[in-house]
């Protein structure tokens, strides 16, 4: 039986979720539990001249107040150790935590946090990416030079990291172009906005700590707690109840150490639940703002000869996990095209804003929006159909990527053909109106891999427990693991119970990040299940007097191939074995594609070669109200090469959710700041998510290419890829309707209206006269 034939996909966590009986972190109450509140910096940049917690300590109902003075003297994070758990001396963004309070009610905790006296010497805030790079800019980190770092970082004033990607002589190649098109694109920062605000409940029993938390990365959370509170790994247990979405926003530092430290002092369990406002301003997981300046030289026949670009990426105040952003963004600006010579420079810049971190396909939606807008502008300059221009330049199997990777089987061109044909067929049926157009964008994304493990047990009653370090954040990826095991074992998935989201019982894994669950945990689950299957075959071979390799496992029974009538039930086999059957797997990272040395990259963070790269094409049907600038997306046609699709319903769900997030990013989702660097729209009324009334119809096709180095059954990841191409497709449709380019993301009604009425000057096209 092929897994894709399973008609409906049953989520093991489904009944919990629809009945309201499943518990999320904020739903937990422990005996004697106190409630936490943070005191935030409030100023984007300032030196602390007074910090007096005594008014809070004096309040009735307050059980603990802690600051930097109450926790070990440790700098984090792993890549650049540029911050402490609680602010020390200087605050660098408005949402930085200065103090934490625990009290008997959330209301008292908040009142006590507000009563803490903090005075600052206000320092000039760094809020502009380009100005931050100037010689005269104030510094976000005065002592940047002294921070510990891991790996190859570039230290220079406000530059947190720099990457350069060079192939050939881009200047010389540019000089041979018939036409050079250049443009600037500026994307605002945005947010992950899971509907569940984060929550943490920490409880000590003696010197053992248990933390219930809404993290996407439980093992990472455990490491962070151990590192900052100086605890041995074996005494810290992280449990994730149901998780109400993450989208990357719940990776990384997540306030578990703060609450654990608070609970230790309070001598009782402590619970933190974020408000929506806090969810916007405090986490180190904002989607980074970005500037893309790009020039591309082409021949009249559409051949790209060179691309040169500079990217400015807003890192915010501290290093979350963004050291790889410059290289990854540079790869995206190179694009999934045969781009000739390349010179792409990317600066990740410290500013006095909330830290940026991996939000669903970090750097890609913005970089892709810029480069796919640019791609259409090149086609216009050449008087060529944008689809035809892409067709001529898209990478195909055997082509070489920006850093020299030779692509195995890939389906970029198939994605383009399928998505554009689907959109055209719909437009043929229902012709485009005068204010409507179709826009096309390509997208691409790597598949990330790490080592992972899994345990499996088959009990005497024939049921199975599958223990995985995988983290379910809603995608259904962990749920899918059950189907892989069921397929290996020949049992109904319903007989398999998943044990997950508990670091005390499961082997370590990367968690719900980087679209890795199926790829990594899936490989481990396959091996653990195969071990049990092998034991079942041995036992059955003995019983049925056949060779183990002739034993077929199906419907919880073993039989000899070709003789299904004489079978033996798994329950009987386990009983014969005298003990439950165990599988334990630990699988290594698959091999990454080799990189020849034909290109160079400064600031290499391992993003140059992509394991099982995923490609996509999105085509948006867009209508514009010319009077108001309001854009409406009625249809999005997508085609995705994400390898074999194992859970078809889940796959469609990922694409549909990713597309709608892309529509939001294209049109409404952008963080606005005041002059001092405070967020002005840190609420759902002002930071507008798409509603069901805005949602386009989404038509998805999967290009299932047999990629040699993909995961289980040839699957790649799929959680991030659908979030990459949508904004570019909408931008290109919009430009066709209004005849102008909107160069800022999100392309809000106001920006569209202004673009319609203003002269455009930031694209230039030079025709070579010689």
């Amino acid at each position, binding site marked *: 039986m092929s897994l894709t034939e399973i008609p*409906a*996909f*049953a*989520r093991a966590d*489904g*009944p*919990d*979720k*629809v*009945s*309201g*009986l499943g*518990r*999320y972190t*904020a*739903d937990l*109450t422990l005996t004697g539990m106190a409630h936490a509140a943070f005191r935030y910096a409030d100023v984007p940049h300032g030196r602390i001249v007074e910090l007096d917690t005594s008014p809070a300590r004096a309040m*009735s*109902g307050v059980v603990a107040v802690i600051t930097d003075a109450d926790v070990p003297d440790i700098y984090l994070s792993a890549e650049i150790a540029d911050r402490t758990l609680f602010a020390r001396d200087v605050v660098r963004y408005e949402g930085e935590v200065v103090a934490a309070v625990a009290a*008997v*009610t959330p*209301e*008292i905790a908040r009142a006590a946090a507000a009563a803490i006296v903090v005075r600052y010497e206000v320092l000039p805030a760094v809020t502009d990416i380009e100005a931050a790079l100037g010689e005269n800019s104030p510094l976000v980190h005065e002592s940047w030079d002294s921070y510990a770092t891991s790996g190859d970082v570039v230290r220079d004033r406000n530059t947190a990291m720099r990457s350069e990607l060079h192939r050939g002589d881009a200047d010389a190649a540019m000089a041979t172009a018939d036409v050079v098109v250049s443009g600037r694109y500026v994307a605002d920062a945005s947010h992950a*906005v*899971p*509907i*569940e*605000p984060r929550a943490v409940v920490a409880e000590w029993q003696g010197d053992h700590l248990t933390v219930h938390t809404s993290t996407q990365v439980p093992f990472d959370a455990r490491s962070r707690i151990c590192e900052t509170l100086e605890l041995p790994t074996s005494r810290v247990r992280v449990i994730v109840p*149901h*998780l*109400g*979405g*993450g*989208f990357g926003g719940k990776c990384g530092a997540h306030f578990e150490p703060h609450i654990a430290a608070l609970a230790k002092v309070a001598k009782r369990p402590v619970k933190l*639940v974020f*408000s*929506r406002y806090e969810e916007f301003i405090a986490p180190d997981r904002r989607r980074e703002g970005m500037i893309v300046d790009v020039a591309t030289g082409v021949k009249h026949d559409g051949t790209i000869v060179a691309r040169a670009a500079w990217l400015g990426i807003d890192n915010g105040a501290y290093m979350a996990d963004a050291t790889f952003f410059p290289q990854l963004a540079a790869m995206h600006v190179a694009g999934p095209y045969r781009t000739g010579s390349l010179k792409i420079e990317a600066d990740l810049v410290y500013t006095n804003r909330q830290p940026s971190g991996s939000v669903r396909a970090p750097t890609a939606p913005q970089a892709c929006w810029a480069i796919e807008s640019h791609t259409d502008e090149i086609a216009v300059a050449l008087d060529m159909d944008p689809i035809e221009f892409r067709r001529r330049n898209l990478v195909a199997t055997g082509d070489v990527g920006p850093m020299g990777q030779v692509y195995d089987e890939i389906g970029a061109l198939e994605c383009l053909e399928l998505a554009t044909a689907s959109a055209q067929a719909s437009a043929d049926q229902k012709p485009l109106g005068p204010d409507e157009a179709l826009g096309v964008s390509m997208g691409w994304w790597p598949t990330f891999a790490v080592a992972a493990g899994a345990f499996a047990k088959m009990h005497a009653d024939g049921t199975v427990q599958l223990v995985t370090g995988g983290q379910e*954040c*809603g995608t*259904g990826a962990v749920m899918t693991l059950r189907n892989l095991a069921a397929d290996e074992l020949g049992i109904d998935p319903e007989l398999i119970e998943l044990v997950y989201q508990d670091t005390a019982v499961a082997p370590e894994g990367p968690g719900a990040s980087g679209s890795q669950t199926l790829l990594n945990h899936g490989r481990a689950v396959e091996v653990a299940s195969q071990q049990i299957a092998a034991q079942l075959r041995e036992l059955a071979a003995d019983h049925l007097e056949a060779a183990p390799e002739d034993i077929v496992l199906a419907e919880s029974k073993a039989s000899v191939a070709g003789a299904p009538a004489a079978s033996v039930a798994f329950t009987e086999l386990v009983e014969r074995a005298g003990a439950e059957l165990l599988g334990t797997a630990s699988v290594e990272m698959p091999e990454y594609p080799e990189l020849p040395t034909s290109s160079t990259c400064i600031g290499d963070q391992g993003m140059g070669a992509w394991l099982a790269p995923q490609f996509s094409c999105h085509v948006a049907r867009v209508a514009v109200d010319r009077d108001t600038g309001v854009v409406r997306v009625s249809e999005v046609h997508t085609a995705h090469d994400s390898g074999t699709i194992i859970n078809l*319903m889940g796959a*469609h*769900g990922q*694409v*549909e*959710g*990713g*597309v*709608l*997030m892309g529509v939001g990013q294209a049109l409404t989702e952008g963080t606005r700041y005041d002059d001092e660097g405070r967020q002005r729209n840190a*609420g*759902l*009324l002002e930071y507008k*998510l798409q*509603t*069901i*009334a805005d*949602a386009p*119809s*989404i038509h998805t096709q999967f290009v299932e290419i047999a990629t040699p180095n993909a995961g289980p059954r040839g699957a790649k990841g799929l959680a991030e890829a659908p979030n990459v191409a949508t904004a570019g497709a909408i931008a290109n449709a919009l430009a066709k309707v209004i005849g102008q380019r909107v160069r800022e993301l999100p392309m809000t009604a106001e920006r569209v209206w202004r673009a319609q009425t203003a002269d455009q000057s930031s694209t230039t096209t030079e025709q070579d006269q010689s």
Partner: protein
Amino acid sequence: MNPSSPMSPSSPMSQQINLTVNGMTWPVAVETSRNLCSVLRTEIGLTGTKEGCDDCECGACMVLLDGQPINSCSYLAAQADGREITTVEGLADGDELHPLQRNILSAGGVQCGFCTPGMLMSAYALLDRNPEPSIEEIRIGLSGNLCRCTGYARILTAVHETAVELNGA
């Protein structure tokens, strides 16, 4: 824990009320400023009702008050005194899921599930006042409920299928 806490029942700010939730009446003492969402979740222990924004913007906290959908985060518990409240825990008939619950699951309209309770209550109220809604009417009816995971398509399908199923078509 702390006798002078304003949360304690003896506080002059608190009030004794009766909430009828999913058919069962609960006498509770609540501070007059407490919202219904928080009282349902903490005093009554029904945590199916979620809080996503505390500001009337996401719909995760939606419950029915005398059959009408309200955002319980922005509704004072005291105002619900003596009235009938239905939460997501009250949708199923014993172990039998309501068709909306069954269909939202089978259609693939549940991912992280955090919006699901509010979405279900909103859909329930919609079908109650309009048993045969058009697709457009479903879109309008559910536009106060944000979902970040699904792109809404499968939620729309589930509500439509349920309307058809309940009308015996």
